[in-house]
């Protein structure tokens, strides 16, 4: 029970934190059309997070709400991977992270659609359409930047160099995953294949043998998560139950 709850919170936290990160682009996108595109993705992710939090709140019972789970948990209780909490960086970093994460979500949710937990399967099925679009949109950006100008290429290469250390955690099994019948290690090969295909189009290489950082799934985060939570939770913490 605890494991199931933790697993759903993990899925929810990943979506919420990346949604919050991407929302930082709202009003700051490189062009109006892409500003709206990344804001749409941000809202999609927050929508995903809500579906998972609502389910988690029901499992937890005793009057817990989705808002309690999003706004009243502390840093150490968040189970998202480190990848999603990293600062948004430049456009290359943001689109590359989206591509790496959405490709992972795509494989994971394809598996979840046949999960024994019907609620989880239904959320995965509904969400998969959005995720497919996120993969398409972000992969095109990675290819465009990698195969673009000298500057765009150097930006995507820098982004790969700084992000790669956070990719391994997606495929490190945590006890709440194995207890929920999810074997993330199985996804790694297909994920690498998918990444390599797009990278080849952009004429870039996927790094091998990088040291992989982890801890997020255990609640041990990088210094960035606290700042996101401070900003996101401030209102509910200062004015409990506030609505507008």
């Amino acid at each position, binding site marked *: 029970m605890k494991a199931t709850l933790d697993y759903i919170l993990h899925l929810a936290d990943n979506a919420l934190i990346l949604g919050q990160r991407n929302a930082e682009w709202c009003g700051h996108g490189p062009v*109006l*059309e*892409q500003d*709206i595109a990344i804001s*749409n993705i941000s809202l999609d992710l927050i929508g995903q997070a809500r579906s998972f939090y609502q389910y988690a709140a029901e499992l937890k019972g005793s009057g817990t709400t989705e808002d309690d789970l999003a706004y009243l948990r502390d840093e150490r209780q968040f189970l998202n991977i480190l990848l999603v909490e990293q600062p948004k960086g430049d456009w290359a970093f943001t689109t590359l992270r989206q591509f790496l994460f959405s490709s992972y979500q795509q494989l994971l949710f394809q598996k979840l659609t046949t999960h024994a937990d019907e609620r989880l399967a239904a959320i995965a099925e509904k969400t998969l359409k959005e995720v497919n679009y996120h993969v*398409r*949109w972000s992969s*095109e950006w990675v290819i*465009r930047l990698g195969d673009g100008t000298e500057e765009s290429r150097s930006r995507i290469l820098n982004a790969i160099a700084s992000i790669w250390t956070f990719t391994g955690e997606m495929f490190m099994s945590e006890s709440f995953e194995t207890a929920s019948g999810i074997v993330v290690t199985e996804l790694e090969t297909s994920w690498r294949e998918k990444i390599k295909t797009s990278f080849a189009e952009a004429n870039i290489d996927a790094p091998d043998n990088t040291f992989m950082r982890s801890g997020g799934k255990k609640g041990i985060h990088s210094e960035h998560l606290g700042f996101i939570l401070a900003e996101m939770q401030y209102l509910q913490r200062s004015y409990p139950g506030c609505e507008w």
Partner: protein
Amino acid sequence: MKTYIRLFFYGDIPGQETGSAPAPQGPKNDWPLWEVFIRSKQGLDHKHVGSLHATDAQMAIENARDVYTRRQEGVSIWVVKSQDIHASRPEESGELYDPAADKIYRHPTFYDLPDEINHM
């Protein structure tokens, strides 16, 4: 000093293909402008909804999806480069449109329709 002012009408943006005057020097990284047409549901026409910037047709369709269909406005998108659309000139409206003004017999309002016919 002579100053030449060229008038461009909506959509009539000179491009290299048209062989007209060289395109005005905009900001260096300006992406081309595209016109967007959305079909709101199967069986209806694509209607012009606005324009946007994109580097190529694929990106224009995706931008249109994000900008113009986020509230379920459509099921199909057309995009066309604005420079490929040619418009009539406002100062020609006299010769183009005014002659139709006194030819009311062109309107199908002189027939008696049977009551049973609806939707005319």
